[in-house]
């Protein structure tokens, strides 16, 4: 599997899309800080040109990162079905397991690198251009990152699963959005009437992210479960869902024809 992972990194190194994704996301976040700084320069009473506002914009919109994971998986997957490139690996006897889990590992590593760069550039731009509101804002952002990490892994696993199962990228992305977005919303509605759906909706990654709330005065985050147990619950549920989805995807792909 190591050789497969190495080869995937070699391919990503030569793929402009990987760089573009990081550059565009970073540029958008940096530009938002530039705008805040520019407004402050023209209007001295402007109250939002500080790290408190800039970083809170990031962590209160962490759902966007959750959906960006779909793009990350799609970039790394690299149109294997429409390019018909996977057959070259299979023909050489590289097992479906190595291909499936190799891709997933590369997606996770790339996602971590990409989001560290994107978040890092946002933080750096905020601290360089805006008024410093204290280190507590940064701590809160890091806490949010720790809490949502397994849920982001789950989003990657779901996308990876459908990209391998479905030969059509559009169908795969549609199915991913259905499972990650539509199903939790529908479960929420059904949960008002049926308790079982209420339970299910509570462990859907989308809803778990949605249920993170913030005390902006104390600069603390609140989870549905109190204290440190809340962190453990998020990680436990996230990792179980990640494992189940990854395994289901592999079991289906193991029997799938590769063209």
């Amino acid at each position: 599997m190591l050789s497969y992972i190495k080869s995937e990194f070699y391919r990503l190194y030569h793929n402009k899309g990987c760089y573009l994704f990081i550059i565009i996301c970073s540029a958008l976040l940096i530009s938002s800080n530039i705008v805040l700084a520019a407004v402050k320069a023209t209007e001295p009473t402007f109250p939002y040109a500080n790290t408190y506002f800039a970083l809170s914009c990031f962590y209160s919109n962490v759902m966007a990162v959750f959906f960006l994971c779909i793009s990350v998986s799609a970039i790394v997957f690299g149109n294997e079905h429409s390019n018909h490139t996977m057959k070259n690996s299979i023909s050489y006897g590289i097992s479906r397991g190595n291909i499936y889990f190799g891709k997933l590992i590369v997606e996770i590593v790339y996602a971590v690198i990409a989001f560290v760069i994107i978040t890092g550039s946002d933080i750096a731009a905020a601290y360089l251009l805006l008024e410093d509101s204290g280190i507590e804002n940064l701590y809160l952002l890091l806490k949010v990152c720790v809490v949502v990490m397994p849920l982001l892994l789950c989003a990657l696993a779901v996308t990876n699963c459908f990209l391998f199962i479905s030969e059509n990228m559009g169908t795969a992305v549609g199915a991913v959005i259905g499972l990650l977005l539509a199903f939790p919303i529908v479960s929420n509605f059904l949960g008002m009437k049926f308790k079982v759906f209420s339970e299910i909706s509570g462990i859907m990654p989308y809803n778990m992210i949605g249920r993170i709330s913030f005390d902006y005065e104390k600069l603390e985050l609140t989870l549905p479960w109190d204290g440190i147990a809340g962190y453990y619950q998020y990680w436990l549920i996230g990792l179980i869902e990640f494992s189940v989805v990854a395994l289901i995807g592999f079991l289906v792909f193991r029997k799938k024809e590769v063209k």
Partner: protein
Amino acid sequence: MREVILSTDSLTKKYKDISAVDHVNLEIKQGDIYGLVGKNGAGKTTILRIITGQTFATEGQISLFGATSEEALNKKRQRIGAIIETPSFYAYMTATQNLEYYRIQRGIPDRTCVKEALEEVGLTEARNKKYKDFSLGMKQRLGLALALMNRPELLLLDEPINGLDPFGIVEIRNMLLKLNREKNITILISSHILSELSNLVTSYGFIEGGKLVKQITSEGLAKECDRYIELRVDNVEAMTALLEVKLNCTSYKVAPDRAIHIFDYQDQPNKISELAVKNGIGLLSIMLKEINLENYFIQLVGEESLQKERAANPPEDRRTNPPEDRRIDNA
């Protein structure tokens, strides 16, 4: 005795109720250049896809270098090189980068193999060109370079000269012959263009409707591709009866298009024409012909199709040597 390196035992692949491959028993020995011949959709590619693990057999099994289990087969697949259907690579990468990607993936330590493979297929000058800018012929060559990169013992080539110009065809054919003779690489090559195989293969497997209709060596085929008299008459049944009784000729067969192919009397065709005329049979044409590979295949596939038709619906008047023949003669 040469080792059998690839064999299939009753290999079957069904898509719902349709058999794409139907109980195929192939046997390829070390050093063979085996030509898998069949029309488009006959099942050639499906067989190759099963061998390379891209799809799975519904029934039967394959044995590759003696391995039969899926795990063992995957290991043995590292000893093969394959081009299945059209070669496929990453469009945004150059020829060198594409091969380097697969070199890393396959764990081949020798970095020079990429350069050597490109040289072997004549793509050295295009090595830094992106795959998306390649012509069809160049794509085929790059596919061949990938197949050769791991120095395989068995090459599986699915229509490898599609898109090549005549010079390219000769070049690739010579290269395959060289690989076979100098490096003892066994080759399984599929094609629907018979002429491209005639100067290359040592054994043929003819496939039609998923079934392996016939396996024959190139020597055996040369014997079967013989000269014959093609006779067209208005009463085939009566004429065949007359041939047997009056001329004691049994070496003939009736082709699907109702022409009688007679393998005797090639130096006395007048005897056959006289026999027809004397017995009141309308003689439409008589000529000396030679079976080439194409005709042989068409005849073989035609017979197979006819047999299928007969099995489904056996009409009396379609039999080649019906009992009525003798009745006419006796009369």
